[in-house]
Each structure stands twice: as structure tokens, then as C-alpha cells.
């Protein structure tokens, strides 16, 4: 560990490196709406059609098509796509609020698709919680009763659930509003209630369905920071749906981009920006400030013989923005070193290509 490396902020560990057992494992998931929907996933011919062709041929809409991914414990997994890309359907399929047409969803070793009604309710009560775009609060209940609603459903006693609800209300920063009604709160505060309701049951996984899309930009930023904070404090696994790329990059350990129900690309933020899978993703990430996302790994060049190797060292996962000053002030090129092994070299040109220009990079 070099001093430069410890000074640079540590990015959260990228889970695929250590590859622990995933919490949720989704395999070849399909959701088709329409008559005889269950025939579509099985038919190779129908699978090949575009959405529009499928609609014309069969009258079916395929909202989720052959999607697979794993979510590791403690990870924030973001699903991103424009409206109509199937992301909200996908997250509802995870707890079968919408019944999937085909595929498997394994949660902690158990296939959720095999669960009967009772087991499914149990999972929803104990293991999963969801935060909704339009909050879905009960207007006839006070904040504290909204937060304790899930506990009430479970059959917890009134005193106990109120105590727990007050704890969570404090955790999301709503102290003092316990006895207000939802329509007396602003949109951001209502969504805090939604968040508190989801946290109250102490679930293993939190699902967010575009939770901040209905909020003003400033409040949205506050709430994003709130989620980051809560993630640090409670360390829950989160699946987060959004249509906003900057939100995805800000919150997500890994991001899955969907289009027309299919996975386009799945990877970390710097992977999407550094190596877009196709023009669609490239168009998406075009306006992202690359220096904020890319790490040195993406911009370093191979060592050349002319390079002087006595410059400072940095790790490959340091973000370009953080390394800029160190590279530009050093009079010699910076070595990118991981576990004592030299991976490549970063000089002023590489840094400036990213910071000053939009083109270049991988």
C-alpha cells in the first residue's frame, strides 16, 4: 500500500472479484403479457422477434426477455433503462408482485417461483421490502402507523411495532413528524416515510422502484445521499431501479442496462463508460464526465522503454479525477501498480485526454 493509494478514496469493493454466494440469482427470466404468453419464451422463433414484430404476430408484449444476473450480499445493484424498457416489471417479478412467465429467481438458495402463497407472503414480510415511485402511503394513517404497517401485517403487537417504527422514523430523519398525515408532508418527506416503512421490517433486500423520479432535483440529491448513508449504516442488499444514469452511477456498485426488455450490458460504472457494449450504451454514457467515473485502469498505457520508472505509484482503481493533481504535479509519469505488480503508466497526456476532451479512452 503506497501513501498515494491510501489517500485516494477507497471505492467499494467490486463484488465479482471475491465472488461470494449471490443473495439473488436471476436466470433467464421472462415476463410476457398477452394471450398464450407462456408459449413465447419456449419458442426459438418468437424469441428472435423484435417487440413490435412479436406484438403483430401474437398480440403479446414481452416486458422482460431472457434476463439473468446475480446480486451479491451488501451490493447496490442498479437496473437502468428508459420508460417501457421493462425495468419496473423486472423488479416486481423478483417478489412475484407480477408473476414471471419463465425463468428462475433463486433467493438464498430457494427458488421463489416454487414458493406457495403462504411462503411468498412470509418472504415479502421478512426478507424483501419495496419503495415505490409514488410512495403508496395510506392517507388515513399517521406517519408512524404507515411505517409500522408492515409489522402490523405480520401480527406484531401494537406497543412493539410503534417502538420499532419510531426508531426507523428517527433513522430516516423524520423525528417530529410521527403524528403527521402523509398529505401534510412534502414529496421528499413522503418518500422518507416510504423508505422507513421498507426498513421497519428489517428485510434482507430492499427493492427501489424509481423512488426519486417524482421528486424535485435538489430533494432527489438529498434522498440519494440518504440512501448512500443508509447503505453504509445498515448495509442492506439493494436493487435499485432508475431511468437516470447519474443516479445509477452515483449509487450503483453494478449497473444493468435494459432496452426493450433485454439486458444490453451489465457491469460497474467505469466498465459502462470505459467499454460500452454497443452504440445504445455509448449514446447513454456520452455526456457523463468521464474523469468522475473512469479509473486509471482504463486510461493507462503499456510501459514503454523510454519511460522513467521512478515516478509515484497509484492503484488501478483510483478515479481519474482524484489522480489528476497527483499525475500533473509529478514531473515523471505515474506508475499504476496492483499488488506490487506494474500494470501500466499514466502520464499527463492520458489524464488530459480524459479531463479536457470527450473522445479517446478505451
Amino acid at each position: 500500500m503506497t501513501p498515494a493509494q491510501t489517500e485516494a478514496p477507497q471505492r467499494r469493493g467490486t463484488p465479482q472479484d471475491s465472488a461470494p454466494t449471490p443473495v439473488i440469482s436471476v436466470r433467464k427470466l421472462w415476463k410476457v403479457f398477452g394471450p398464450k404468453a407462456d408459449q413465447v419464451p419456449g419458442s426459438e422463433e418468437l424469441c428472435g422477434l423484435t417487440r413490435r414484430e412479436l406484438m403483430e404476430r401474437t398480440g403479446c408484449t414481452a416486458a422482460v426477455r431472457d434476463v439473468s444476473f446475480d446480486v451479491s450480499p451488501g451490493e447496490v445493484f442498479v437496473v437502468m433503462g428508459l420508460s417501457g424498457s421493462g425495468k419496473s416489471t423486472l423488479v416486481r417479478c423478483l417478489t412475484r408482485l407480477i408473476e414471471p412467465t419463465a425463468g428462475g429467481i433463486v433467493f438464498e438458495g430457494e427458488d421463489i417461483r416454487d414458493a406457495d402463497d403462504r411462503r411468498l407472503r412470509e418472504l415479502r414480510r421478512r426478507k424483501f421490502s419495496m419503495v415505490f415511485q409514488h410512495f403508496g402511503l395510506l392517507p388515513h394513517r399517521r406517519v408512524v402507523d404507515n411505517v409500522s404497517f408492515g409489522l402490523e401485517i405480520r401480527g406484531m403487537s401494537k406497543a412493539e411495532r410503534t417502538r420499532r417504527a419510531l426508531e426507523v422514523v428517527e433513522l430516516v430523519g423524520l423525528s417530529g413528524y410521527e403524528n403527521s398525515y402523509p398529505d401534510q408532508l412534502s414529496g421528499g418527506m413522503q418518500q422518507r416515510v416510504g423508505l422507513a416503512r421498507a426498513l421497519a421490517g428489517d428485510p434482507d433486500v430492499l427493492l427501489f422502484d424509481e423512488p426519486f423520479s417524482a421528486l424535485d432535483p435538489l430533494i432527489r440529491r438529498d434522498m440519494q445521499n440518504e440512501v448512500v448513508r443508509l447503505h453504509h449504516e445498515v448495509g442492506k442488499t439493494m436493487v435499485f431501479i432508475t431511468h437516470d444514469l447519474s443516479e445509477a452511477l452515483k449509487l450503483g456498485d453494478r449497473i444493468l442496462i435494459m432496452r426493450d426488455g433485454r439486458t444490453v450490458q451489465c457491469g460497474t460504472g467505469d466498465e459502462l463508460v470505459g467499454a460500452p457494449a454497443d452504440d445504445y450504451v455509448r449514446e447513454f454514457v456520452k455526456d457523463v464526465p468521464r474523469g468522475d467515473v473512469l479509473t486509471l485502469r482504463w486510461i493507462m498505457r503499456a510501459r514503454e522503454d523510454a519511460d522513467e520508472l521512478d515516478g509515484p505509484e497509484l492503484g488501478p482503481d483510483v478515479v481519474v479525477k482524484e489522480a489528476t493533481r497527483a499525475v500533473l504535479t509529478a514531473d515523471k509519469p505515474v506508475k499504476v501498480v496492483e499488488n506490487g505488480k506494474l500494470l501500466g503508466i499514466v502520464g499527463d497526456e492520458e489524464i488530459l485526454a480524459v479531463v479536457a476532451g470527450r473522445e479517446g479512452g478505451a
Partner: protein
Amino acid sequence: MSVAVEKSRKPGEAEALEPAAPAGGARKVSRPMVIGAVLVAWLVLFALLRGKQTLPLAAADLTDLHRWINDFNDSIGAHRNSNPLFLYFFNEIRLVIDNLVTFVQHLISQPSGTRPVPQVGWLGVVGIAGYVSWAVGNWRVALLAVAGFTFFGLQGLWQESMDTLALTLSAVFVALLFAIPLGVWAGLSDRFNRIMTPFLDFMQTMPTFVYLAPLTLFFLIGGASATIATVIYAAPPTIRITAHAIRNVSRTTVEAAESLGATRRQSLFKVLLPMSRRTVVMGVNQTIMAALAMVTVAALINAPGLGVNVLQALQSLDVGTAFNAGLAIVVMAIVLDRVTTAAGAREENARRSMNRFVKWRRPLLGAGAVVTAVLIHLSHTYVWAADFPGNGTIGHHIASAADTATDWAQDNLSGVTNAFRDAVTNGLLNPFQTLLTDSPWWLVGAVLVALGVVFGGWRAGVTTAVCVGLLVGTGVWSDGMTTLASTLVATVLVMVLGVVFGVWMGRSTLVDRLIRPTLDAAQVMPPFVYLVPFLALFGATRFTAIVAAVVYGAPVAMKIIADGIRAVPETTVEAAASAGCNTWQIITKVQLPMSRGALTLATNQGLIYVLSMVVVGGLVGAGALGYDVVAGFSQGELYGKGLAAGCAIVLLGVMFDRITQAAARRVGA
């Protein structure tokens, strides 16, 4: 993206579904010409064939159908206690309902057992009314309820009022017992909703009147029949509104509850029902108002209460007495309406105000309950608290004041009112009625079918043809045409008023705010009481019924048209104004054409309201179908004819409804 996909799909789909759309567009150009041609052909044929094949039937004449119904009625009467269907079904229902009504009557209105007075006297009832109004509403409506109930006593109509109240409450209780679960079911299940909707449409299309005749066949005349008729008439609003409320609960909220692992039961009781409670209370309000209207009309089949006073006074043209009793009905309607409306708003208001008296509410409610209990006890024990003191002198004053006013009006205004009456009667009603009644039946039928096709399309035309055929079958064709003439004339007047006031209200928020409360109040009044003031002004004629019908039907038309005008997008009006339109042009070229849907709907509702009132007008000399029905209740040999006339009213109602609904759909598309 799927949005784009859907958009590009829509035109194709529309074409596939409605191949008739271009044809409709082509027909629109020539529609007025077609209508004109039909009318001209009618007039020509009328001139040639006048007086032939008009199917007249004198008041005392009967057809075979009527005699057959009479015999059928007699045979039911003879086997009422031996036929198993009656023994184990109709008689049982009648018994249960009868027991319920008698129980409530003994409680508040009729002498009970050995007591010469009911179990709870006036003081107790006033106390309960005030307490309940306060508990479910607020102290203002509680004061209103106490004042209103005391007023019944002062009018000298305490017992009659309590009979009406007892019948209304019993009917509402039974209606809600069925309506709320059915409404919840219809809200949860699309299939059940599809099954229920046509029935509810049908039940609400029928004038109050026509429920009575068939029910007497099975349940005899009296309180039980009245209550059953009232239940059938009053339940639909609650079913409909409950279903609507359940359906309108935010999908996200239900989903949120599901995502937390709520069972269906928990979703229903913790989310759906609490969130739709306010709307359901609105439905209950409408059910109560409908029940009150029906209970008063049910005086025709010997239901006790205020309706009897109005009915008898109307039949003897005693305006003063009718006015006094009508006023009591109006007061009861206002009290019931205000209290239930306040009940709907209470929780919300309490929440908003964050009232610091909230913590006192419980002890105060307890104290109020104790006071009420004491009042009940007093009224049970002491005569002064049981029998309303005095002998209704205020009622006599009201009656004689009304008589004086009537006399004055007849002395001083008769010139004006008679001129107005004669102008409309001779200028509009008589020629039109002659045209309808003196044309051959097949000619009128053909014209009706043709107009049905032109306005509503082929399916409406087929419905019209079926209705015309059945109308001929009822044997009261001629009376039906008289009623039709009155109804159409009244509807034209309703629409004139509706457009004038509707446009005015739609364009001016101030006017809307001034007029709308009056219209709302007018709509909760039972149709019966509308007859009274016009009887004073115009005497017992067809015209009285028409004016009452116009006044009864106009509020709903005004409101629908005002809402339609208001719904025209602001930007369209602005665009027209910026293009240099004057006010008249904006109204005639932008606002009215763009609210065609509202105009058609207003016509539909106006027709239905007018029809029910024109029929009730049979009581005050409007004759025709309404008279046939009333006569059927009172004279055994006319029973069959009355029932046939009731069917004719139903057929007219269905015909109007189908044509205007189809027209509304066509305009809306």
C-alpha cells in the same frame, strides 16, 4: 420503445375496430337532412291518415292482456298461502321486512303494545338525532337535526314524519346490508362488475313509480312492499359508488401492501376499505336520499308517512295541507343530506385542523351518550316527553299561509300564469300531442325507429323497434303517446334552461358558486313535493306536471352542461379569442360544439328525470300512463291496466335511454 410502438399501433387498431368511422363521418353531413326528411314525411302522412289506426283506449276500457293480468293477480291472491313459492319465499321475505318495519315503527312512531305511545317519544328521538348527528358529523348539523326534528312536531306532523323516517331507515339498513358487500365484490372482480352494470343501469333508469306495481303482485300493498321497493330503488347508488371507490384506490398503495406480504383480507380491510370510506359515505348519502324519495311516493301503495298527507291533499287539491307536509319532507331531506355529507367530511376535517379538543372528544361523546339516554328514559316514562305538546298550530299557520298565498296568486297572477300555460299548451303541447296520438301507430313507430337509427345507430334502432312493438302490446299505446308528448316537450324546455344556465355557469365561476348549491339542494328533494307549488299556480292540468318536470330535470342538465363547458381546454378558448372571436362566437363555435358529449348526456339524464316526474304528474291531472298506474293501485279491475301502463313507462324509459346513450357514445368517439 414501447411508447412509440403503442402510438404507431393505435391508428391501425382504431381502423380495425371501427370500420364504420368513415361512414359515420359521411353520414354526419346529411344527418339533419335525414331528420328533416323523416319529419316532413311524417307530417304529410299525418295529414292523409289522421285519426286512423290510432289504437285508442278509453279510461275504463281493458284489453285482453289487462284482463289476463287481473286474473293472474286474482289467482296469486287466492293461492298466496298455498303456493310453495309464496309460502317459503315471498311470504318469508315479506314477514322479515314487515317485522323490521313494525319494530322500528313501534320504537319511534306507532303505539307499541299496551302503550298509547311509541317506546321512544319525541324528546328521545330529538335527542338521538342530535347526538348521532354530532357524533358522525359536527355540532352544526347536530343543531340542524334538532331544529328540523322539533319542527316536525311543531307542524303537527310528528307521527307521520316518524313513520317516514322509520320506513326510510329500515329500507336503508336493508339496502346497505346488500349494497356494500355487492359493491366491494364489483370493485374487486371485473367479471362481477360487468354482470352488475346493466342491472344497475336498468334499475336507475326506471321512474320510482314503476317499481311499485309488480311488487304489490308479490308482497301485497303496505309497508313491507314499500320497503322492498325502496330497497331496490335505493341500493344501486351505493353498489355503484362503492365499486367505483374500490377501483379508484391507488394501485401503488395496494401493491405496497402486497409487497409487505398482506393477505387479500388484510389488503381489503386495512387498505381498500379505509381508503374508500369517504366515497362510500357519499354513496350512502345518495341511497338515503333515494330511499326518502321512494318512501314518500310509496304512499300510493298504502305506505304510512308524510307521503300519504301529500297524496291525499294533492288529490283533493288542498294546496295548504300539501304544502305543510311537503315542507316536512323537504326539511327531512335537508337534515338527512347535511348530516351524511358532514359524516363524509368529518374525519378529513378533524385531521386537517389538528384540533386540540380531539382528546376531549371521547369524554364528550360519553357525556352526550348519557344525556341522550336520560332523554330517552324521560320520553319513555313521561307523557309530556312522549307526545309532542301542542296541536301543531304552526302547521295550521303554514297551511293557511300557503292557502292565502295560493289564493293571492290565483287572483292576481292567474292572468300571467294562465296565459303562459295556455301559450305552451296550445302552442307546443297540443299540436305535438295531436301529431303523436292521431297518427297511425305504425307511422309513429316507424318515425321513432328511424330517429333511433339516425341518432343512435342500428343497434339503438333495433332496441327502439322492440320497444315500440312491446308498447303496442301493452294496449295503452294512446296514453303512452300522450306521456311521450309531455315528456318530449318538457325535455326541450329542460335543455333550453340547461344550455342557458349551464353555459353561464360554465363560463363564470361566480355564477357557478352562487347557483350550484341551489341545484344540489333541488336534486335531493323527492319528486313528489315539486308538484305542490305548481299545483297552486297552474291548477290540476298536464301543464302543472310539465312545469314540475322541467324544474325537477333542469338542475341535473345544468350541472352536466356547466361541467362540459368548463372541461373545454382553456387554451382552445384562448386560441379562439386570439383569433378575434366574440363571446357569442366562442360559445356557439367552440364551447358548445366541444361539449357535445355533455349535451347528449344532459339530454339523457334530463329525459329520465322528466319522464319520472311526468308520470308522477298523473296525480294532478296529467292523465295518461301516470293516471293509469295510480288508478291501478286503487281500483281492482284496473290493476292489469295499471301494470301494463307501468311496463309502458319502462319501455319508454329504456327507449330514451338506449337512443341517447348510443348517441352519447357516438358523439364521444
